[in-house]
Structures are given as structure tokens and as C-alpha cells.
């Protein structure tokens, strides 16, 4: 349950956690419009990293990371 301070830290941690055990890792995105907050979480039920933002420029970065992970999840390699 750790909130990371910057997006770069979160992206790095998320990728490392995912690559350590791809089949166990899940990636959760939550958006609350009324609070104006976006919350991203990545966990494998042992370790958990979270990131919270209120800034619009993080949406683009989120899109990039999501696409990157999704591409890997649906790929043939292990």
C-alpha cells in the first residue's frame, strides 16, 4: 500500500512488478470525476504500488503505460 511520489517511479515499479510474475500481476485504474482524481494501482497480492494524480498531463503517460503493459500481456512470449 505505498503511494509513489512521481509517475516515473510508479511506471518503473509497475513494470518491474509485472515482469517478476506476469500471470499474477494486475493493473487497476480508477477515475473519480467529482473529486478530479485519478488513481492507478499495480499489485500481485504481495507487493502493491499506487499512484494518485490530479493533473491532466498524467493521462497521456497513463495511456502509454497501459498500452505498453497490455501489449505485453497479450503477447506470445512468457
Amino acid at each position: 500500500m505505498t503511494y509513489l511520489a512521481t509517475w516515473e517511479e510508479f511506471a518503473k515499479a509497475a513494470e518491474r512488478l509485472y515482469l517478476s510474475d506476469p500471470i499474477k500481476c494486475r493493473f487497476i485504474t480508477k477515475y473519480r470525476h467529482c473529486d478530479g482524481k485519478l488513481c492507478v494501482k499495480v499489485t500481485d497480492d504481495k507487493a502493491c504500488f499506487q499512484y494518485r494524480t490530479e493533473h491532466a498531463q498524467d493521462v497521456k503517460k497513463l495511456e502509454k503505460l497501459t498500452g505498453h503493459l497490455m501489449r505485453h500481456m497479450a503477447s506470445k512470449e512468457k
Partner: protein
Amino acid sequence: MTMKRYDGWVKPKPRSGAVSEPAEYKCLVRATLGNKKISTVINHKDVTKFQMAYGNLLRANIDGLKKKDKKAARGRKKTKATQ
């Protein structure tokens, strides 16, 4: 929105460990709102299509966040004009 890797198993894996590796992984995507749930499985060939649709959805709907850069730039311009 939750996404995770999906190998087609819906039962717990047998403890003997005699499971053959799946030839291809897929991506399982679930989305919930209140008590409504939807889910889908994305194949390798559909990733690009899904990504484009999902990217558009994100950009179109996450519009309640602060636009920090624009506001700061406008503020700076205004102070310059008054000087």
C-alpha cells in the same frame, strides 16, 4: 478498470504442477461501475484496435483533472501584459 494477463484457465491449477504452457497469452480486461460489470478478453491481433479505442475513451472522458501547464502559462502572460 482492471487488466491482467489471461492464459485461458478458469479452474485452480492442479497442485502436481503438470500444466503445459499455453501457446499464447491474452489480456483480460474488467470494468465495473457500481454494481454493473463488463469484461472482455483481448487477443494478440486486437491489441492495437483496443488500445486506440481505449485511448480515445480515456482522453475524452478524463477531463476533470487540473490543466496545470495552461493555467500557469496564461497567468505568466497576463503579468507580462500589465507590466
